[in-house]
């Protein structure tokens, strides 16, 4: 037992020295995640307002102006140009000068008086974000304006009309201002961490294979599992430094509130990073060249970004796709990170994901160890 511990310590020392010697890579590992965090935290805005808008107002009367004003006041639409016809509006959308077009036909005021006025809103259907925010904004602004006109009319006829018999107050739990950062940050930190964990281990093992040094390692009395653990430990420590840096930046610089228990989060992150390192190890034992490892990790990060619930919700995905997402530790940890950081909940609600990660961490390590043995044998 003591002998084994000695071997392990020697291996850990070797890996740490190797890691610390390559200064540029080390700098990459420490700096890139921070850089990415800052870029994305500033870049990702989910609600789109101030959509560039082209207007064809063929009436130019009080009613048409009032409608356009109501739309502009909603802050969703920025009128960039006035044109003469619907064809010109379509051209503006074709050429990407506008994302939204508003067409008001002639004699708008007269039609409003008769109660059959129609306005047309055109949206650029090649851009899903503009469509979703433009659509609901245009419809609700126009509806509010119509209701206002109707109640004005009723008032003139002596009927007092309350515009809203029901008011709904919508409260967004955990994130009352719907701040994009609170949505993004927990998942983003988890994503960056996993990518880094997978990359560093995948590379370090494949490199030993390519350079042939793995044979030398195998000639020593160290067992495959010991080799693997020896490789993982120094990387694990580095990942924890990166995690601490990104989390501190998130909380103190970006002001994302940390609702839950930081210690619980730290322990579960350790487990998660372990799973990520194990996944990198698996990739490295499957891939024969660094080029293949490169391709596989690229694929993995795309999958992680799109299938784990970090950006797109998992609920509407087909079952097969959800199962593929289950193969990635990030899927479980996105829920854990959001649960602890944003919702402030504890193990009572998160235990299923924690158990999943535990099983994953042990399973992937054993799997990687057996594939490594097979490949060398």
């Amino acid at each position, binding site marked *: 037992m003591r002998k084994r511990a000695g071997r392990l310590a020697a291996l850990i020392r070797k890996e740490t020295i190797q890691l610390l010697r390559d200064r540029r890579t080390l700098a990459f590992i420490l700096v890139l995640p921070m850089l990415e965090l800052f*870029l994305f935290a500033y870049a990702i805005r*989910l609600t789109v307002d101030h959509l560039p808008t082209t207007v064809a107002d063929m009436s130019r009367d009080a009613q048409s102006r009032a409608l356009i004003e109501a739309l502009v006041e909603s802050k969703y639409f920025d009128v960039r140009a006035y044109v003469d016809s619907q064809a010109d509006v379509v051209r503006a959308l074709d050429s990407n000068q506008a994302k939204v077009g508003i067409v008001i036909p002639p004699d708008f005021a007269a039609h409003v008086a008769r109660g059959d*006025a129609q306005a047309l809103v055109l949206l650029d259907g*090649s851009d899903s974000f503009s469509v979703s925010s433009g659509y609901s904004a245009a419809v609700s602004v126009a509806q509010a304006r119509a209701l206002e006109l109707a109640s004005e009319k009723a008032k003139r006829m002596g009927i007092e009309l309350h515009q809203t018999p029901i008011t709904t107050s*919508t409260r967004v*739990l955990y994130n009352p201002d719907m701040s994009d950062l609170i949505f993004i940050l927990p998942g983003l930190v988890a994503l960056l961490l996993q990518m880094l964990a997978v990359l560093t281990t995948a590379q370090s093992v494949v490199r030993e294979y390519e350079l042939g040094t793995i044979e030398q390692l195998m000639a020593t009395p160290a067992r495959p599992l010991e080799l693997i653990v020896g490789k993982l430990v120094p990387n694990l420590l580095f990942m924890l430094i990166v995690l601490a840096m990104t989390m501190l930046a998130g909380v103190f610089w970006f002001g994302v509130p940390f609702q839950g228990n930081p210690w619980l989060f730290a322990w579960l992150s350790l487990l998660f990073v372990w799973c990520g390192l194990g996944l990198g190890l698996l990739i490295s034992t499957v891939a024969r060249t660094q080029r293949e490892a490169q391709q596989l990790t690229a694929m993995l990060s795309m999958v992680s970004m799109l299938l784990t619930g970090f950006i797109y919700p998992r609920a509407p*995905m087909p079952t097969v796709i959800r199962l593929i997402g289950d193969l990635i530790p990030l899927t479980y940890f996105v829920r854990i990170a*959001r649960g602890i950081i944003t919702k402030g909940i504890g193990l009572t609600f998160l235990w299923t994901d924690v158990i999943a990660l535990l099983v994953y961490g042990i399973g992937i390590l054993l799997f990687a160890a057996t594939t490594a043995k097979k490949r060398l044998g």
Partner: protein
Amino acid sequence: MFQRTWAVMQKEFIQTFRDRRTLRIMLALPLIQLLLFAYAININVSHVPTIVSDQSMDTASRAFLDALTTSDYFDVVATAPSQAQVIRAIDEGRAQVGVVIPPDFASHVTREDAQALILVDGSDLFTSQSAYNAATAIARGHATQIVLRKLERTGLAPEGQRYLPLDTRVRILYNPDLKDLWFLIPGMIATILQIQTVTLTAVAVVREREVGTIEQLLVTPIRPGELLIGKIAPNMIIALVNMLTILALGVYWFRVPFQGSFGLFFALALLYVCAGLGLGLLVSTISQNQRQVQQLNGMIMLLGLLLSGFIFPRAAMPAAIRWVGNLFPLTYFIPIARGIITKGTSYEYLRSQVLALVVYVVLIMALAVRAFRQRLD
């Protein structure tokens, strides 16, 4: 000069085609990615699990709940007696939306001061946004209906006539049925191509350096520029095959209509592929080992995915972040792909993007050659 370049190309072709396994991976991965993501990503969230606490149980509250649930947006999965239990269900993750209707709803509706509370899980990005928008719009629509019915009872407007004097129609150009895939496929083709091209050439130079064969190449009369062009050639063919297969998958399997000119698309895709391969080469020449390549490559991929406008709208980003996005060819190609495939745009509207890509290719190749020369000294 041509002869020397040709010789390098031959060497690269032989090297590429000899490693069948890697070649298969390179040809298959983009297809697998497109298949996965096209099925996975669902922008329009519907059937959000909803928990209801109806403390009135009268006709008005039921009508309100009906309006919410018939919309397909909300699926009632449970009912609860109190608001606290609704919040608990959202904490646990059993529901993502909660509706709380206080007692005596019907009498409040007649008195026109009814209030309903909608709680939204703010830890999940897309779901909370769409649930928020949908709930607000439906509630407002329902309130309008009540006002109109009241108006009808007063006899202000004869039955059968429209009560709202103003009607807005919204038309979505290019994608009238709001099909997710029509939004996604063009951007996804562009994204997968950039990842693929950068990955293809990113190891080209580093590998020769690590294995030591770069010295052998340098003692031959080949110039740096010729060497790099020779290295790009076989990768260009692989990337073009990738482009055609994923485009065919999108058009024939996922039935995304191709509106514009295929010849134009092919020519611009060729340009785009060159830009991506050039970026990969630059990464390869400035890195010391494959580990660094991997890190830089991972970063380019993430940045491309998040800053290029594929997922998040560029219009909403701060200027500095938009600038960073301009460093990636993907940013220029996404408007081209969406323009030609979805909108059927002709060349004249894409001129600025095309020009940007041309400049990009020239610059990136010049930079790669320069960096390569410097590294040799």
